């Protein structure tokens, strides 16, 4: 971190937390079953236990994250398993309504 400077507030908060040795404490916080908080950022919850440091709006960079499998338990990974997940939603800003859940419906 010595040669890196935070560019925005989120990075600054993270750097401060790291400086104060709070990083393990904040990232170790567990959310509820099946939610992820520690994938920097998490999907449901951020490392501080809130939502302000999530990717927001998540549609803004959704495919930049689903393509490299960032939250494969929550969001269909487009690199290995669901390459066509966004075929009806090429622009996530406009087309997010066409994204569908991937588990077969017959439970």
């Amino acid at each position, binding site marked *: 971190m010595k040669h890196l400077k935070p560019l925005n507030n989120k990075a600054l908060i993270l750097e401060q937390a790291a400086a104060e040795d709070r990083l393990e404490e904040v*990232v170790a916080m567990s959310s509820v079953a099946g939610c992820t908080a520690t994938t920097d950022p998490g999907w449901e919850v951020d490392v501080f236990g*809130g939502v302000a440091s999530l990717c927001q709006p998540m549609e803004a960079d959704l495919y930049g994250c689903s393509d490299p499998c*960032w939250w494969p338990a929550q969001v269909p990974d487009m*690199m290995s398993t669901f390459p066509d997940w966004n075929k009806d939603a090429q622009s996530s800003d406009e087309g*997010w309504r066409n*994204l569908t859940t*991937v588990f077969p419906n017959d439970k």
Partner: protein
Amino acid sequence: MKTTRLRHYLSAGTLAMLACAVLPPAVAEDGKAILNAKCMACHTPEGNDALSRISHQRKTPEGWLMSIARMQLMYGVKISDEDRRSVVKYLADRQGLAPSETDGMRYAMERRLNTVEKFDEPLNQMCARCHSGARVALQRRPLQEWERLVEFHLGRWPSLEYQMMSRDRDWLGLARNEVAPQLAKDYPLESQAWSDWQKSKPGADALPGQWSFSGHMMTRGDVRGVMSVTHDSGDTFNIEVKGQYADGTPFNGSGSAIVYNGYEWRGNLKIGDVRMHQVFAALNGEMKGRMFETEHDERGLDFSAARQDSPRLLAVQPAFIRAGNEAELTLVGSGLSGTPDLGAGVEVVKVLESTPQLLRVKVKAAADAAPGLRNVALGALKGVDLAVYTEVAEVKVVPAYSVARIGENGGTTPKVQGRFEAEAWGKGADGQPYRIGYLPAKWTVEPFNEQARDDEDVKFAGTMQRDGVFLPAGAGPNPQRRMMANNVGNLKVIAQLEEGGLQGEGQLIVTVQRWNSPPLP
């Protein structure tokens, strides 16, 4: 990236063609024949009816469903819903978990998604930080199969090594050398519990009959009634539910159920117009678990039931009374008769209704009755407590921490609501806290912290209704919000008791939708 995708198309496509070209379609064959027909193209026979990989794992019905669904999604296996059900049944029966092997983990099958898990390291950081730890703990494998699961994860989702809590350590070395051996030790393929269960598991004849049930639907109140179970064929049953909420609203419906592995009861029924799913453990004349709406699994009730030939006291509704008051209580169970003993200072004034499943009584708690719990006894039947209180010492919001999700607004994912109750606690004569029960409250939300205040989370994230149901806002970027953020929020949930005004607080995270929703979170 393109090369990777091309390779993926080829492999999935080739496998699918193999499965279709080589093997005949299996329509009404039994589970084993379908398993062989559908899976043998890739899973090699190992003698003794064993197939590579498949025969070296044990899982819940949901676990097997997820495995087969993964074969469909990842490798292009073509299988009808009906055939998949047959294979799940076949595998869950023969390679399931003993009841004791699911202890403490049933919340995942029961879709209690606000459960905060507590797994030791390294399992918490290596497994449970992306999906539930229960998804792992509800499987049994030998070391080699746990190792293969590690390799599969890295091969399928290679970026996992670059994420926080991976890149700071030798993830693969840790996974191979520490996590896999620990899993093989904690969750081994062979176990005494499993071999005992295979010898002792009951047949389908243990289940037909009249089941008296008791439950509590969050924000809606106590429920009671009778579920009639009749045998259909094999391990399937027809069910009819006749019951009511404490306020008299009917809770009636019918449907069907299947039992896996001698005790894993899964029902699908319609209560009124609402489709509901049952996940119960049916053991020794008792059913226990959760019943929830199929489309909204956050709406559900804790459920316990006893068969008519298994005398049991399931609940007293409500399970509290204020000292000095008269109230009507209902004891629910099976084989009920006589007048209950409700403990010191609580007198039965009159028996209002008495059936083997239900005993309705008018009771009076003396003004000087000592605050605390009493064991309710009805003849030899015990196991239920009645709380007497003079004042509420503390209010807890239940659940204390929970996650709701935005949805709809033209999108395909439903909103996931928050549902809250105010749990009153008293202080006993011994100074110890004791649970009184859910009491009526007024509900509000506030920003959880300064950040949430700055971001106006309360304004955007949704609406807290008067009944303790939080209705999240719509999905999608919101142009009204800074940075067009979604309607997410970090909220403090505040319950104020209608009587006395005491307050309690909880935390509600309103977050984004989820598109990958297998039955085990």
